[in-house]
């Protein structure tokens, strides 16, 4: 078990999300940067579906109530165990009563804490991912005690430390394909998408990132239709919203672009005022 001493700004349990429930309007959810969370599970030789903690913007502390192994991946928030800095993307053995802390941000926006055999909060609709009105909890709170999988002998996972390429955090090129309504854009609108840099506004969350720039827009709304994580919507005001993992299943704004899986993971590591360019793949 792991006790939450300090919950931070936005820490939640996440796994691969709720796939197959769109018919009742349930969002997919799941780790924002699935690349990093998968990596942490793989390093511990966990199942791909094992739940991890997603920690956005650091400043939290956890006490291990029993011995286990962990792996921290994704953005860096100066992780320390009992005050001693620890590495990312490697297996770390922790003893009972040791305290893991996350402090100030070095790079990235979200990090993942995987534990041997995963976090075992109650799955609802086949997933442990926190979501309002589905799971009892939406955010971790101080004092929470999280059940985790049984610690088994750690010889079944390797000791290697995996290096994640800098582009994962620093690339300003967000790859995407045409969205269903892309062809309704005018030639000049398309040129703006091809050339302009966009800025992430302070209205960014697990549901979506609003961007600051305004594009001249005369596109009408569409009849409500599917939206997906990574869909870029053009709102009537001319502002863009990039939908993320907790987005609704349907929407009525024109869907102009669709991010690749890799691009969603990269965007998940960006924060307010970061800038990027959309790179359209034919």
């Amino acid at each position, binding site marked *: 078990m792991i006790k939450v001493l300090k919950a931070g700004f936005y820490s939640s349990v996440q796994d691969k999300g709720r796939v*197959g429930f769109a018919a009742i309007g349930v969002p997919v959810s799941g780790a924002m940067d699935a690349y990093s969370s998968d990596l942490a599970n793989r390093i511990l030789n966990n199942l791909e579906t094992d739940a991890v903690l997603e920690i956005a913007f650091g400043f939290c502390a956890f006490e291990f109530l029993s011995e286990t192994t962990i792996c921290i991946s994704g953005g860096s928030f100066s992780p320390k165990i009992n005050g001693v800095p620890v590495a990312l993307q490697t297996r770390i053995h922790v003893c009972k009563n040791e305290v893991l802390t996350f402090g100030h941000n070095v790079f990235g926006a979200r990090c993942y804490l995987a534990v041997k055999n995963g976090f075992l909060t109650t799955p609802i*609709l086949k997933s442990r991912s926190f979501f309002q*009105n589905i799971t009892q909890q939406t955010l971790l709170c101080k004092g929470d005690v999280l059940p985790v999988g049984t610690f088994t002998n750690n010889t079944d996972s390797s000791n290697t430390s995996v290096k994640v390429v800098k582009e994962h955090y620093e690339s300003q090129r967000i790859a995407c394909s045409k969205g269903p309504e892309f062809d309704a854009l005018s030639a000049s609108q398309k040129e703006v998408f091809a050339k302009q840099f966009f800025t992430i506004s302070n209205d960014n969350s697990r549901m979506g990132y609003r961007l600051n720039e305004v594009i001249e827009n005369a596109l009408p709304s569409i009849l409500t*239709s599917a939206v997906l994580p990574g869909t870029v919507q053009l709102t009537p005001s001319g502002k863009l919203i990039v939908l993320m993992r907790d987005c609704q299943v349907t929407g009525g704004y024109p*869907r102009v672009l669709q991010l*690749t899986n890799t691009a969603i993971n990269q965007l998940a590591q960006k924060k307010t005022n970061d800038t990027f360019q959309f790179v359209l793949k034919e």
Partner: protein
Amino acid sequence: MQLNKFPSYKPYGEQAILIEWQQCIDDQILEDMLRFKERIQKESTQFIVDFIVGYHSLTLQYKEPILNYKEEVEILQSIYKKDFTAIQNPRFLWEVPVCYDLQFGIDLEEMAQKSKLSIDEIKIRHSAKIYTVFFIGFLPGFLYLGGLDSDLYFDRKPTPRLKVPKGAVAIGGKQTGVYPCASPGGWNLLGKTPIHFFDVTQQQPCFATAGDQIKFIPISLDEFYQLEKEVAENKYSIPKTLVHD
């Protein structure tokens, strides 16, 4: 209306295909989409992990990135052409109790002022129609209903309310619906239902599915509190009838 065109196909990102029908809200299109969905589910569920229904669209989400989009579309087109009279999931008409008392229908007075209808006429017209469930979206358990009386079209409020209560029955533009949980919202509120539209503790978190029908049954304030109690004690089941067509 005649369905004179085959649906069209578009790639939607690396692992989804968007299938679109004529751009309108129509029961026949809904039927065609749902039957197509049933056939696809029967033929090839292995690679498709989810289906998202919209007013005139069906989106298929694949487990893995689609390697050969053209070939996949050809497979879907051949499934579409297959005979589909044999399979059809059952459809139900659900009778949803609604209390139109002014304490819940907080926008009724304003709606009456803006239209040529009295408060009573608004209530009568709203509960007279049988609505079709087109799909569920926006929030878990939020039903998109078709069939609102055109005299009951009311624009969304200019500034959305920060908190619309769970169970609120509302009209937004040409649509009517029920808020399955407390949420910010800009629709006009005309009543409240004591029943749950989304409850994860139930085997089926949302009782209705696309293609079902909904009728609102007016109830008094006393009946509302009585039903609310029964719902809380898990003693109430929503009256339903099997719809044959």
